[in-house]
């Protein structure tokens, strides 16, 4: 009978309204971004960083494996011989010029996997907006001194 359909419909509507009413008791899931840090996973692939050893020497030895591994050709490396008195890296060579073009990078992490010394890593920064194209090419200085990203690392 049509009446039973209507009663069933009314019960369903009542249950739907109960669900929304229960939502009122929950805290909103919104992260108000600039004022609150965004939670990201530990393996989140953000802006690149060049790491160092504990004694201050750079990890990058200029082997150019990352440039070879990069699928888009975003990395440009020029190696140079290490000066024996003031070595920049513990090895034969170091990277004289190291640039990453963020506009070409797809943040796949292949460079991080290819690097033999764990020099290039992908950090957690995602706020990379800029006004000029030139500013999107990260130089070695910027990669060696990344800022603090506005994130909190959440457990896996």
């Amino acid at each position, binding site marked *: 009978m*049509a009446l039973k359909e*209507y009663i069933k419909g009314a019960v369903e*509507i009542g249950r*739907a*309204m109960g*669900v*929304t*009413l229960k*939502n*009122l008791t*929950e805290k*909103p*899931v*919104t992260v*108000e971004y600039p004022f609150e840090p965004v939670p990201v996973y530990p393996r989140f692939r953000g802006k690149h960083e060049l790491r160092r050893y504990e004694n201050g020497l750079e990890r990058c030895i200029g082997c150019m494996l990352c440039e070879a591994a990069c699928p888009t050709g975003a990395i440009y490396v020029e190696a140079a011989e290490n000066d024996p008195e003031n070595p920049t890296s513990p090895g034969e060579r170091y990277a004289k010029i190291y640039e990453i073009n963020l506009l070409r990078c797809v943040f796949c992490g292949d460079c991080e996997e290819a690097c033999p010394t764990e020099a290039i890593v992908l950090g957690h920064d995602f706020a990379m907006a800029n006004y000029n194209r030139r500013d999107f090419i990260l130089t070695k200085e910027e990669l060696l001194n990344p800022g603090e990203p506005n994130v909190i690392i959440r457990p896996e």
Partner: protein
Amino acid sequence: MDWLNLIVFPILRTVVLFLVLLTGFAYLTWFERKLLARFHVRYGPNRAGKFGLLQPVADAVKAMFKEEIVPSHVDKPIYLIAPALALIPALIIWAVIPVAKDTPAIADVGIGFLWILAVAGLESYGLILAGWSSNNNYSLLGALRSSAQMISYELPLGLFLVSVLILAGSFSLVDLVDNPRAWWEWLWLWVAFPFFFICILAETNRSPFDLPETENELVAGYQTEYGGIKFSLFYMAEYINMITTSAIMATLFFGGWRGPFAEEFVWLGPVYLFIKVVVLLFLFVWVRASISRPRYDQLMRFGWKFLLPVGIVYMAITAVLAVLLK
């Protein structure tokens, strides 16, 4: 001629009522956005002033500074008058709603129920003329859908109103609230309340019956060609309709301004009415957040094949009860 009572006081009351309604409309938009957001587990506007309380002000300033475009292909006189025609009935229904003991909002015309039905009938005109004058296929379809929906749900609305009238005995809303009611009348009226609420949702073009104005149907329906202040007037008309119909429902089903100590302290009357209206507006927003939209033919079928018979049966039973128990 009694200038004071016949001219001056009503004008003052009208001005106060307009100010109250327009402020109420502005903060109803705030209330709805915040409450809808909380139903969606997110924050509403909270940037413009603490808790987003200045958001309506920001919206009003934006609407005022927006460029007023009158498209060249519209029927200008009707195009310009349609928003006003949509807004005016929403404002004038308030004239008969009692706000305190023996005090209607503006003037007790003695025919409160008829006034409500008649003015509710006028509300469709603004929409139809807006859609027609826009010279736009989709606006026209939106307007026709909307007007068909409104008039088909006015029938059960009228039937339920007549049932309340049978139990009340007199046409005036002021008398309705002043006279005491038996306990069985309260219960019987509360049985009708959900159906009446559904009719009101369809009358005010509110979710889940908001097909004429949803963004994903018909662009914006009859409001497509309107921008700036003219659009704000339609928006205002819809929200003031919400407030007005909430006040009507509070008066008919929940005792209007009555409450503890309302007779001794006259100023408590409007306060209780305000509280009841706010609860009913919460119900409006709750329904909007929860229920999906029926298709247009399902909507019409529901109105004609279910609500209208229910209204007739309800009215018949009310008449029998009134004769037997009064």
